[in-house]
């Protein structure tokens, strides 16, 4: 069985894509299993591996004249297309979660994203019997119909929708830290251009490079992770100084008892994209964009009230025993001076 020259290029690029992603998954630091983004990212890697696998098998069948070649090529192409739909869907979820950081927001959105994808997946399965989206010639060469191009366009609409989601989020004043969709979209678009303008497929390779870039851009945030609490560590102050910031106030929470319970309450009571630094074993600093004392007190009291309720139920060793102080920044002070006011 000899492989057609143009298939050779496709197989090469697909094997490279698989190698890149397998290496990424095997060597990379184990992500936080509680974070949905970790699971979604892993699913996207799996999706791209399946796309590359399907593509490579279909390419290897091209030009062969055995009886089993056409059904194998059709099945492989269907796997690749289904995996592409799955990956695009996961991408939407990933962008949503990275922007809003909320499981509730994700739960509200995932059905909405899934309906068109589910319909397209069903259509692809029906296609195996009817060939109304694509079929294979006797030599296992892909023969797409106009429906195939509609399908591709819809998948692209999903990518465009992710750009729109980000723009809407930023327009509403959302904060984007360590997350950009550009590192993924640029290689994906380049890979698609190669797919559309040549006889070779480099789409899976583009997706794989995109995911690697995404991983690296997110990994920048690791320097600021406080692994134990899930908040930022002290190094995040340098990041705020470097990037500029508009934080005018700070609340210093101090627990005399259980800190793990306090961390849960802080996460539940304060806004999702809050900047909270785990300063030392017992102290947490919550930075606010307002310098109005009543607003700062209101936010701090949300935590204090929840802690009081907790401490009513649990006493002694289980109690949190919270105290807090707040500080505002004067016009001459910078964020580092505000920080030291809070911790000294």
């Amino acid at each position: 069985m000899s492989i057609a020259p143009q298939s050779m290029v496709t197989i090469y690029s697909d094997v490279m894509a698989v190698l890149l992603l397998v290496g990424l998954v095997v060597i990379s630091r184990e992500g936080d299993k509680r974070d949905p983004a970790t699971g979604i990212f892993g699913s996207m890697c799996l999706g791209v591996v399946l796309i590359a696998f399907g593509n490579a098998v279909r390419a290897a069948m091209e030009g062969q004249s055995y009886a089993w070649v056409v059904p194998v090529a059709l099945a492989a192409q269907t796997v690749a297309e289904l995996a592409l739909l799955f990956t695009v869907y996961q991408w939407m979820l990933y962008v949503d979660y990275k922007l809003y950081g909320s499981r509730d927001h994700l739960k509200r959105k995932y059905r909405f994203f899934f309906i068109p994808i589910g319909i397209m997946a069903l259509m692809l399965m029906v296609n195996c019997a009817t060939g109304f989206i694509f079929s294979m010639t006797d030599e296992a060469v892909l023969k797409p119909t106009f429906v195939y191009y509609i399908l591709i366009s819809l998948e692209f609409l999903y990518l465009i929708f992710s750009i729109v989601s980000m723009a809407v989020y930023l327009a509403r004043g959302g904060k984007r830290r360590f997350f950009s969709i550009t590192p993924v979209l640029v290689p994906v678009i380049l890979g698609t251009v190669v797919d559309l303008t040549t006889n070779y497929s480099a789409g899976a390779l583009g997706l794989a490079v995109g995911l690697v870039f995404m991983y690296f851009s997110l990994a920048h945030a690791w320097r600021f992770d406080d692994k134990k609490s899930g908040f930022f560590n002290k190094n995040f102050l340098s990041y705020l100084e470097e990037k500029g910031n508009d934080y005018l106030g700070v609340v210093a929470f101090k627990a005399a008892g259980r800190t793990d319970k306090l961390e849960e309450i802080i996460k539940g009571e304060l806004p999702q994209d809050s900047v909270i630094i785990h300063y030392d074993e017992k102290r947490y600093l919550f930075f606010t964009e307002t310098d109005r004392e009543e607003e700062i007190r209101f936010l701090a009291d949300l935590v204090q009230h929840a802690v009081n309720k907790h401490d009513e139920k649990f006493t002694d060793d289980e109690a949190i025993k919270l105290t807090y102080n707040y500080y505002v920044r004067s016009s001459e002070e910078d964020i580092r001076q505000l920080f030291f006011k809070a911790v000294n």
Partner: protein
Amino acid sequence: MIMWLSETSTGTIILDITTIFLLTGMIVFTSLYRKRGFVSDRIYFYMIIADIVAALTDGLNYFFLESPLSSKGALITAGDTVFSIAFEVIMFMMVLFWDYRLREDKKHTVRFVKIAVWPCVLAIIMILGNLFGGYLFYFDKVSGSYVYARWYDLIYVAVVIYVGIMLVQIFKKDKRTFIIFLLAIGCRILLRNVLRDVSSTPFIIAILLVFFHIQEMNENYYKEVEG
């Protein structure tokens, strides 16, 4: 893809362009690490640059190979000379990189350079000598084809030595990286034997560099600062 190019050349050029794209991204994503100023961070940057040079010359070689240019013989020979030197230098730097990553002792790495540099130096002398002797590779003007000469495999002697040292170094440092390193080299050898012709060396090196950086990122960025 482009006028006179065959599938082999097109495949090579696609992979070389992807390599340059990937490595350019890596320059951006590793900028924070370079600011730390560790020996390994500096070596890593030089490896990226050397691999970009390798990908560039590799792509141009395949581009010229099937072009109608009259001077293509000289261009390809010069290109392959640069490519081969870049390849040897990258392998040498990889060994230094892992030596530092393993011990984190600058003095040891400096001592190690004095021994480890020799296979690379001898290989470079041999490659440069080929410009006058043509015993490794040359362009046959009569047939218009590129010829790998009798002693071509000597280019790989230094590479095999460095890969051998690296296998020990990576095994000691991180078993998962070791497995993926073996897998990448295995893929390269397998593809070369099954599919041949398409040159994926710069891309495989780029993938290895990506893996090396991921391995490094697993450790604490502020490790030395924090003591």
